[in-house]
């Protein structure tokens, strides 16, 4: 599904350049539920952006469903994003002057689905996430948890293969965070690959695979079986902290 081979990425910061990713090799299968962890500046968001084709990389290869993602035109990248990937952001990134239903329907607009049909589908998705009554509300009339659910509905509506979530619970309280994680879990159960970036251990612990980044490199990959061990470590970490 996703195959990264020796990915390098650096940012120009004026005269100096910041080497953010220093050779990432990664293999994620269809249907995985992965979290990417790491301290700030470890390159986790950059990695997610490269996975989502929001950003390009300097060196290495990135294959998505067998296609090499490199030097694509903006147009082709946009089309691929539309078809393959759904994004969920920490700050929700809803369009403020559109109501919930219109926000959810927007990806279908770029797919060329007629207005009535896409609004109907959007309502369906909002219903799935328990927000049917809020369809005609503007984003600023909704709570953070509701906004994030709208954003998830928007990510799902184009039936992507992958959901990429950048700190999806970062702006939410714990109750809402767990709710969002439950939703992502359900999505994953339907066979969609879910990759989240988080720095919260309890959130990461709900995924089936944790990739820990440290200073632009993969520090360790904790798989399902080892999660218990991770949780122990996490509690230990809490105690020592």
């Amino acid at each position, binding site marked *: 599904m996703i195959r990264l081979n020796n990915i390098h990425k650096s940012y120009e910061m004026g005269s100096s350049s910041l080497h953010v990713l220093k050779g990432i090799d990664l293999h994620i299968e269809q249907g995985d539920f992965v979290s990417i962890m790491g301290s700030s500046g470890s390159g986790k968001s950059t990695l997610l952006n490269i996975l989502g084709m929001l950003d390009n990389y300097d060196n290495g290869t990135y294959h998505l469903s067998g296609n090499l993602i490199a030097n694509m035109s903006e147009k082709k990248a946009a089309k691929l994003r539309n*078809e393959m990937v759904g994004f969920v952001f920490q700050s929700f990134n809803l369009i403020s*002057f559109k109501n919930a239903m219109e926000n959810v329907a927007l990806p279908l*607009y770029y797919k060329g689905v007629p207005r009535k049909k896409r609004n109907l589908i959007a309502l369906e998705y909002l219903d799935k996430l328990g927000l049917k009554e809020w369809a005609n509300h503007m984003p600023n009339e909704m709570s953070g948890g509701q906004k994030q659910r709208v954003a998830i509905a928007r990510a799902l509506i184009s039936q992507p293969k992958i959901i990429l979530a950048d700190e999806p619970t970062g702006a939410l309280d714990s109750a809402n965070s767990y709710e969002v994680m439950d939703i992502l879990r359900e999505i994953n159960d339907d066979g969609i690959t879910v990759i989240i970036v988080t720095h919260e251990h309890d959130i990461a612990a709900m995924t089936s695979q944790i990739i820990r980044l440290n200073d632009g490199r993969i520090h360790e990959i904790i798989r399902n079986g080892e999660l218990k061990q991770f949780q122990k470590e996490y509690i230990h970490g809490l105690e020592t902290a």
Partner: protein
Amino acid sequence: MFDIDIWQEILATIKKNKMRTFLTGFSVAWGIFMLMILLGSGNGLSNGVAANFMNDAVNAMWIWNGETTIAYEGMKTGRPISFQNQDQDIVSKVSGVGASSGRYFMGNTRYSYGKESGEYTTITCQPALRDVENLILNEGRFINQIDILQNRKIVVIGTDIKTALFKDSTALGEYVNINMVPFKVVGICSEPGSTRNRNAYMPLSTAQMIFNGSNKIHNLALTINASTLEESQAIEEQIRTALGKKHKFDPKDEGAIGLYNKLENYIQTMKIFQAIKIFIWIIGIGTLIAGIVGVSNIMLIVVKERTKEIGIRKAIGASPSSVIGLILLESIMITTIAGYIGLVLGTGLMEMINYFMMQSAVPATDQSETIFMNPTVDINIAVYSTLLLIIAGAFAGYIPAKRAASIKPIVALRDE
């Protein structure tokens, strides 16, 4: 690109961003509105003044006799010059001179018909005077060549004379006594742009014969064919030289003969108006540029303000061209509608002023001098300037829109 969806998308955006839309629209509408008013006023002013000139033929020239002020060929100054019939032939032989008419002044003359009588000015002339003074014939005919040749005792009277002497009865074919000599009325005329029509016109030859003028004329009225100031001045010079040769005065002597060249005056005034027009255009273009800058400014802000939205749209699958299209179409739509509103309001206001001026002008129809007339704008200019503003607005929007569309979505999303 022109499917109904994109329009719905744009309409939804406009509806949710009323202030932004209003500001963009207002600067466009205001620019066009001011331009229309400026151009309209300029046109009104120049139309008004041009119309005043039209009261006489614009290429008219009058020559009258005077006294020499420069000693010439041994003769001292102060010698009076007088014109005879031959002088008219001399002048009309000068190239560039069109129709000409000699005039003999009779002073005030008493007109009587039945019990009515009055003092009026009699202008003795030849048929060509009608062209020089743009006389309007209300009834009958003007003096013709046969009248001149046969010294016919006929007269063309002004409308005021007709009203005073004949009241409501017909004047044509009747005989009026002029200084006790009966003349047949053959026409009734009026002068354009004048409320006083107290002049009567009589054949020059008849007047010379009856009222003891022999072959004297006092004044020559003529039209000249010249299109530039230089040409008309050359004709003036030739006339002075020709008459100077005959009457033995220095062609440079301004006093020997008087000469009024209306064309020269007209050309000079029109030059002033051309300058005013250029000035108005400069201001108008300035206004237009201000409008364009306003639109560009707002478009820059709009794109800046929408950077994040653009990022979101791109993240969920909008192609760069669809982003540019969205912003451009929105700006074109706003500028077009606003430009049209400004156009309608501006031309509407000028047409309204025009209408009220026409209305109020009715009671005093030929009220002599109006300096403001028909203050309207050529519709082509109006449409072209609106188009220019729309194109400029689109262009102004295109550059930032293109840049915004080429920003990586990740950068746009980070923009707070």
